[in-house]
C-alpha cells in the first residue's frame, strides 16, 4: 500500500505522515492538498480499492488557523484504513463536496456545515437543519464560540452552583486529609 | 304495561350494576394474577375503579368531532347491548336481560356494533395509528370469527336451536351435559377463537403500545377513555357469560357464574402470560389454519 501511495505521491501531491499511526500497521495517514483532495479520493475509491468512507470529520486548529478535515476510507479486501488529511483555511472554509463519490458523505457535510460552517458547494440538503433546529449563532463547534457564555446568556443558570476539579474533589471525599501526602 | 317496563328497567339496571362491578373486579384480579406470574405484587384489585374515576374527573378533554365524541358511546352501547341480549343466569328473572328479543345470531352480530362505533370514533381523530390499529383489529376479528362461527354452527346443528337460553336449558342436569363434553371439537375451536376475541397475548397486536401507541384509542382521553374502560369490563363480562352459556352449561346462580367465568378468563390470562405476540398476518393465518380445521371437523361430525 505504502508503495502504491508513494508511486502516486507526485501525481496527487500527497505526503505520507508516518508519525501519526505508530500502533497499527493497517492504518496510514496521508496529507493532501485542497485542490487534489477530490481527485485523490476518486482514485482511491475507483482504482485503489478504498470503497468505503468510514467517516468524514473536521477538527478546529484555531491556533494554526485551519480546520483539519479527515476522510477515513477503508479497503475491504485488505482491511487497510487510510486517513486522508486536508488542511483548510479557517478564513475561507470552502471545499469540494464528495457526495458524488459516497452519497452518505452528504450527511457528514451537512453536519460539518452546521457545526463548523464549512461550505461544500453542491452538497444536497447542506443548509437544512441537521441537529440544531434554527441555530442562529456562530457554529458551535468552532473554538472561537464561547459555549459557556452562550449557555449563561440563554439558559437561565441557576445560582449557587459550585464547580470542582473532579480528581481533587474525589480525593478529598475519599481520603480526607491525605491529599498532601498522596 | 308501564309497570312491566319499569320492573324490566329496574332488573336491567341491577344486572348491569352487577356485571360492571364484576367485570372491573375481574380485571383487577387478573392484573394481580398476571403480576404473580411475573413475580410481582401487582396493582390493587380496585385499581380499575380508581383509574376510571380519575379519567372521569380530569379537568380537560379534547374532541375531534362528532363521531369522535360518539365513538365511545357506540362502544359502550355495543358492550351493554351485547350483554343485555344474553341471559346471564339461567332461570333468574333479574339476570335474564333481554334475551327474548334475539338469539345467538343477534349477539354475534351485535358485537360488531361497538367495534364499528369505536372504529369510526378512532377514525375521526385523524391519527394514522388509530386506523392502523383498527385495520389490524378488524382483520384479526374476521379471522377468529371463522372458527367461532363454525363452532356455533356445529352446536346449533347439534341442538337444533340458536336461542342462548335454550342452549343453557339443554345443558342442565349434570356436568356431562355441557357442550364442552358433548361436542369437544366445537368447544376447542371456540376457545381458541376466544383467545383472539379477548385480545390478550398472543393476539394483542391491535393495541401494540410501543409501536402504534395503544392503537385505536390512541387519541382517547378523559371521560372518553373512562367510558372505554368501563366498556372493557362489561364487554369482557358479556363475552365470558356468552361462552359460559354456550359451552360450559351456563349458570344457575350468580355464584356459579362468577366461578365459571373466572376460570374461563383465567385460561386466557394464563395463555397470554406465556406466549409472545403474533403479527397481524400471522394471527390471521393461525386462525384460518388449525382452529378452522377443527371447526370444520366439528361441523362435519354433525353432518354425518
Amino acid at each position, binding site marked *: 500500500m505504502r508503495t502504491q501511495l508513494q508511486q502516486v505521491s507526485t501525481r496527487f501531491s500527497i505526503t505520507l505522515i508516518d508519525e501519526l499511526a505508530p500502533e497499527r500497521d493497517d492504518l496510514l495517514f496521508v496529507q493532501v492538498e485542497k485542490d487534489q483532495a477530490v481527485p485523490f479520493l476518486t482514485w482511491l475509491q475507483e482504482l485503489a480499492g478504498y470503497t468505503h468512507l468510514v467517516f468524514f470529520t473536521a477538527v478546529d486548529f484555531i491556533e494554526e488557523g485551519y480546520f483539519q478535515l479527515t476522510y477515513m476510507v477503508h479497503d475491504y479486501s485488505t482491511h487497510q484504513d487510510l486517513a486522508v488529511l486536508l488542511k483548510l483555511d479557517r478564513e475561507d472554509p470552502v471545499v469540494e463536496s464528495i457526495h458524488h463519490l459516497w452519497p452518505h458523505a452528504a450527511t457528514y457535510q451537512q453536519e460539518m456545515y452546521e457545526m463548523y460552517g464549512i461550505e461544500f458547494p453542491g452538497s444536497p440538503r447542506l443548509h437544512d437543519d441537521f441537529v440544531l433546529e434554527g441555530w442562529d449563532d456562530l457554529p458551535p463547534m468552532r473554538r472561537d464560540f464561547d459555549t459557556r457564555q452562550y449557555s449563561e446568556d440563554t439558559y437561565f443558570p441557576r445560582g449557587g452552583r459550585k464547580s470542582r476539579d473532579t480528581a481533587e474533589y474525589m480525593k478529598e471525599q475519599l481520603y480526607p486529609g491525605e491529599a498532601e501526602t498522596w | 304495561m308501564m309497570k312491566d317496563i319499569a320492573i324490566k328497567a329496574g332488573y336491567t339496571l341491577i344486572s348491569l350494576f352487577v356485571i360492571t362491578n364484576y367485570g372491573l373486579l375481574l380485571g383487577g384480579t387478573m392484573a394481580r394474577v398476571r403480576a404473580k406470574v411475573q413475580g410481582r405484587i401487582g396493582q390493587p384489585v380496585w385499581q380499575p375503579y380508581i383509574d376510571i374515576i380519575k379519567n372521569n374527573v380530569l379537568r380537560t*378533554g379534547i374532541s375531534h368531532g362528532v363521531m369522535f365524541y360518539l365513538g365511545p358511546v357506540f362502544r359502550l352501547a355495543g358492550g351493554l347491548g351485547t350483554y343485555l341480549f344474553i341471559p346471564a343466569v339461567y332461570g333468574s328473572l333479574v339476570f335474564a336481560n333481554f334475551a327474548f328479543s334475539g338469539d345467538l345470531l343477534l349477539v354475534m352480530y*351485535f358485537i360488531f*356494533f361497538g367495534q364499528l362505533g369505536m372504529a369510526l370514533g378512532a377514525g375521526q381523530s*385523524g391519527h394514522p395509528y388509530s386506523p392502523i390499529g383498527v385495520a389490524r383489529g*378488524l382483520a384479526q376479528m374476521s379471522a377468529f370469527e371463522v372458527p367461532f362461527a363454525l363452532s356455533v354452527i356445529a352446536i346449533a*346443528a347439534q341442538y337444533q336451536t340458536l336461542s342462548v337460553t335454550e342452549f343453557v336449558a339443554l345443558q342442565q342436569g349434570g356436568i356431562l351435559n355441557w357442550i364442552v363434553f358433548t361436542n369437544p371439537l366445537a368447544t376447542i375451536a371456540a376457545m381458541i377463537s376466544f383467545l383472539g376475541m379477548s385480545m390478550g397475548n398472543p393476539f394483542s397486536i391491535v393495541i401494540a403500545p410501543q409501536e402504534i401507541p395503544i392503537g385505536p384509542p390512541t387519541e382517547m382521553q378523559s371521560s372518553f377513555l373512562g367510558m372505554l374502560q368501563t366498556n372493557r369490563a362489561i364487554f369482557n363480562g358479556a363475552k365470558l357469560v356468552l361462552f359460559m352459556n354456550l359451552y360450559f352449561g351456563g349458570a344457575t346462580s350468580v355464584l356459579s357464574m362468577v366461578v365459571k367465568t373466572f376460570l374461563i378468563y383465567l385460561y386466557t390470562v394464563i395463555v397470554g402470560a406465556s406466549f409472545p405476540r403474533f403479527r397481524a398476518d400471522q394471527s390471521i393465518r393461525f386462525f384460518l389454519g388449525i382452529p378452522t380445521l377443527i371447526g370444520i371437523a366439528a361441523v362435519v361430525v354433525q353432518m354425518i
Partner: protein
Amino acid sequence: MVSPLYILGIGLGIAFLLPLFEKLGKKIPRIITLITLMVFTLIAVSWVVMISGAVDKFPVIFNTIGFKAPFAISLQVGLIEALVLVMINTAALLSGLFLSLRKDSHWEGKQIVLFLTLVIGVNGLVLTRDLFNLFVFLEIVSISMYALIASNDEKHAYEAGFKYLIAGSIASAFYLIGVIYLYRFTGTLFIDQIVAMDLAALQATHPGLVFAIALIMLGLLIELKPFPSNGWAIDAYEASDPAVSAMISAVGASGVVFAFYKISSLFPPEMAEIVVASGAVTFVFSQLVGLRQKRVRRMLGYSSVGQIGIIVMIIGLQRILKIDDAQMIMSSAIILLGNHIFSKAGLFWLSDIFDQEQLRRVRRRPLMIVLFGVFLGSLAGLPPFPAFWAKWRMITVLAESDKLFLIIIILLGSLFEAGYLFRWFTTLLRDESDPGDIHEEQIPEDIPVSSSQTGVVSSTRALAALAENAGSVVEELPVLSVEDPTAAEKRNPVVLAVVAISSVIVIAAGVLLGAEFLRASNELLLLIPVAVLTAGILFDLLHLPHRIHLILAMAGISFYSYRILMGLDGIYLVFGILFLTGSLIQMISLYVKKSLHFGLIPMITALILSLGNLLISTTRLGFFFSWEMMTVLSSLLILRGRKASGAGLRYLLFSLGGAYSMLIGLMLYPDFSLLLQGVRDVSTPPVLAVFLISIGAMVKMGSLGLHIWLPGAYAEAENEISSLLSSVVSKAGLFLLFVTSSLYLIPLLPSGNIPVSVLLGWIGAFTALAGAFFALFQEDIKYTLAYSSMGQVGYMLLAFSLMTHLGWVTSLYMAVTHLLFKALLFLAVAGVLYRTKTRMMYQMGGLIKRMPISFITVLLSIIALSGVPPLTGFGGKWLLYTALIEKGWYLQAGVAMFASAIAFLYLFRLIHVIFLGQLKDEHRAMKEAPIGFLIPQVVGMIVIMLFSMYPSLLIGPLQRAVTPFFSESIIWEGYTVFSTLGYWNGNAVMYVTIGVFIFPLAWLLLMQRKHTRMVEQFNIVFAAERPDRPETTHFGYNFFAHYRRALGMYLTPWATRWWTGVVTLTDSLGGTMRRIYTGNGQTYAFQIILYGTVLLLLLRGGF
C-alpha cells in the same frame, strides 16, 4: 303486372346509351341511372304488392321470345323473388345515391355503366330459370364486379381484382362443365323441368349426374366464398372502394345466393348435407378469423363471408328438413339476407365516411353513433333488428329437428361476430384517455413528502400532482356540441342521410318483424322499449331540453309501472317493485346533470321498461327478447363511461354468451313458456337445459367464475348507471332463477343424486366470499362497490338455492334491502365523486365535516349492508343463517359468515378512508352533494329505518309471496319472528339499542359538559412530532396489507386467467387460421381446386 323483361330490357338499353347521355352533361347519366334504379325498385315493389294480394296465383313464369322452355329462356316471378329484388334494388338505389352524393365523387362514365350492368345481372340472376342463362348473368355480374373493383385505380385494388378474376374463372369453368353435362344427361337447361324429372332414376342410367350437379353447385358455391377458399374475396372487400365493396357484398353476393338457392332444388340430400357443413364451417371460421382482424374493411369482409355462409347453410338445410320447417327456415334466410344487405352496405358506407372525414373517434357524433350502433347490432343479431328474429326462428326450427350442434355453431359464430364488431364499436367510441381495457388502478408515483421547511413548495407541487391526477379521472361525459372545427368542414350530411335511410329500413323491418312474431302471443307490449328508445333518441337529436325529457320519461315509467304492477302478484310483484320503483327513485339523481347527455335518458328508460317487460312476458320469445334488450341497453349504457370501452365490451360479450347459453337451454326445454305463465307442474327438464339457463342467470348476477365482467362494468360506467346496474339490473338474474325455480326442484346432476341447486348454493357462497375479498383490496371506490355487489348477489343466490320457504324469503328480503342500501351507497358515493373528482379512496379523507348527510347515508347503509343490528341488514343475515342451518347446509353457513366478516372490513375501510381521517387541502372548500343526490338518499334512509323498526312490514309481504310455493316456516308473534331455531324481535332490539345508546351518551354529556376543546385535524399526538401534510398523515392506502400478506396467494385471479386463456386461445386459433390467406393468387386457385376436389370426394363417400 309488369313483365320482368322490362327490367332487363330497360336496364340494358340505358346501360348502353349512357355514354351517349354523358355527352349531354356530366350529371345526366347519374340522374338517369338513379331513375332507372328507382323504376326497378318500384317494379319490384309492385310485384310484392300484387303477389301478397293473391299468393296462390304465383309464381308466374314469363317466357322470352314467345316460346316455352326449354326452347326459350324463362323468367320467374314469385313472392320470394319479388322480395329479394325489392331488397337488392333498394340497396342498389341507395348505393347509387351514396356514390353520386359523396364528396369528390368520381362516379361517372364507365363506372355507372358497370354499376348498372351489375344491377341488371343480379336482377337476371334472381329472375332466370335457365341454367345457362344463369351462367351468362353470373358472368355479367362477375365481369362488372371485376371491373368495378379496380375502379378506384389503386394498386391493391388491381391485385385483389386479379385474384378475384382467377377465382371467378375457375368457378365459372366448374359451373360450365357441370351445366353442359347436366344438359347432356337431362336434355334440358330449364331448372323446373329438371326438378320435375325422376333424378334418382336418371342417376341410375347416368352415374355422372350427381357429379354434374355437384360441379354446378361448386361453381356457385365458390362464388359464395366458402371457407377456406375465400382469400381472394376478402382481398377484394378490403382493397376496393368501400362503396363498391358495399355493392359487391350487398348486391352481388345476394344475387349469387339467390341463384344458389334456385339450383338447390337439384341437390340430393347428401349434397345438401355437404352444403350445410360448408356453410357452417364458413360461418364459424370466418368469424373466428375476423376476431384477429385489425383492418376494418377486411374485417367487414370476413363478416360478409360469414353472413353468406350462414345463408348457404340454411339453403342446404331447407333441402333436408321437412317442408314446413323448410319454409320457415327459408323465410329466416330471406330476413337474414335483407338484414345483411342493408347493414353491411351501411357499414361499408360508414367506413367510407370515417375515411373521408378522417375520423378516428366518433364519440362526439351522436347520429353517427346511432347509425353505427344500428348496423352493428343488426349484424350481430341483437334485438330488435331483423337478424334477431331470423335467428330465433332458425334456432327454433333447428331445435325442433334436434340439430343442437348446428345451434351451437350458429351461436358461437354469432358470439365471435359480436366480439369483433363491437370491438370496433368500442374502439371508435372510446375516449382519448381510455386505455382500451380495464385499467389497473393508477397510483401516483409517490405522494409528495416534504420537510416542514420546504412544506410550502412541495405542497403546491403535491396539489398540482393531485389536481392532474384528479383531472384524469373526472367522470362526466363532455358536452356533445364541443368538437373539432376542422372535422366539420369535411362533413357531408347528405351522404349520412343515405346511410340513415338504410338504418331506418333495418329498424323498421326489425320492428315490423317483431310485431309479427310477438303478435302470436299477444305480447306486442314488449316492443314499447324500442319505440321509447327511438322516440327518445330523436328527442335528443333535436336537442330537446333534457330536464323536460327526464320528466316525460319518469312520467311514462310511472304510468307503465302503475299499469303493470296492478296486474302482478306474488314474486312477480316483488320483483316488479324492485325493478320499476327502485329504478324510478334512482332516476331522480339524473336531474343533477347540467347538460344534455346524448342517449342517456332514452336508454335508461328503455332499460327500465325492458326490465318491466321481463315480468309480463309469457313466452320464451318474449322473455328472451326482453332479456336481450336489457343486456344490450345496459351494455350501451356502460359504454358511455369514459374509460369503459374494455369493460363494456366484456360485459356485452359475457352477457351475450350467457344469453346464448340460456337460449339453448330454452330451446331444449319448450315448457319454459308455461313457467312464465305461472304453471308450476311442468315436465322434468333435462339437466343440460337447467345448467344452461342457470348460466344465463349467473352471468347476469356475476357469480364466481362468470364475474369478471362485473367490476369493470360497474366501476367504469357513469355513477348513476353503476348504481342502477348493481342495485337493479343484477337482480334480473335472480328473477330468472325464481321464475324457473321449478327447474331446480327435481333435476339431479348426472354424477349422482346431488341436486343442481346444491351446486348453485356453493357457487353462491363462494361468490359472496370472493366478492368480499376482492372488494377488500381495491383502492378505487367504485371497484369496491362493484365487488361488494357481486358478493351480495352471491348471498341471494345461496339463499335462493336452498329451495325452502325461509330461503326464498331470505333471498327476496336481501334483494329488496340490497337494492335499498346499495343504491344509497352508490348515490352517496356518486355525490362524493361529483365533488372530489377522484375515485381513489386514499385521495379523499376527512369529508365528514364537509358532507355530513352523505356520511350519515353511508354510515347507515354500511351498518345495514354488513348486517349489524339493529338495522335491516341484520334481518337478512338472521334469516340466511337460520335457513341454512335448518336446511343442514352448515359449511355454506360458515363460508357465508366468513364472507360477512370480510364485508364488514371493506365497508369500514370505505367509510373511514373517505369520510374520516385527514381532510385534504383541495377538499377544504367543498360543499355537500347536490340536492338531486340527497333526495333519494333521504327517502332511502327513511325506508331503511322503517324496515328496521318494523321488519314485519317487509318480511310479511315477502312471506305471502313465497307461501304459494312452500309451506310457512316462520311465525310472527307480535314483533317477534320465530323460526324453528331461534327468534328475533327487530322492534325490541331497536328500542334496547336506543336505550343503551342514550345512557352512555347522557353520562358523557354530563361529565364533559365543560372544558372539552374541539380541536383541528393536526392536533394529534404524533409521536411528539407534528404532521406535515394531510396526505402523509392519512392512513388509507393498502389498508388491509396484512390480509394480503396472509392470504394474498389464494387470491390469484383464476377466473380472469381462465377467461384470458380462452380469449387468447380463440384469438391465436383465428391467427393461425388466417395464415392460409397467403395473398398469392395461385395459392388461392389451388385452394379452390382442392376445395372442389375434397367436396366432390366427400360426395362420393370417400376416396
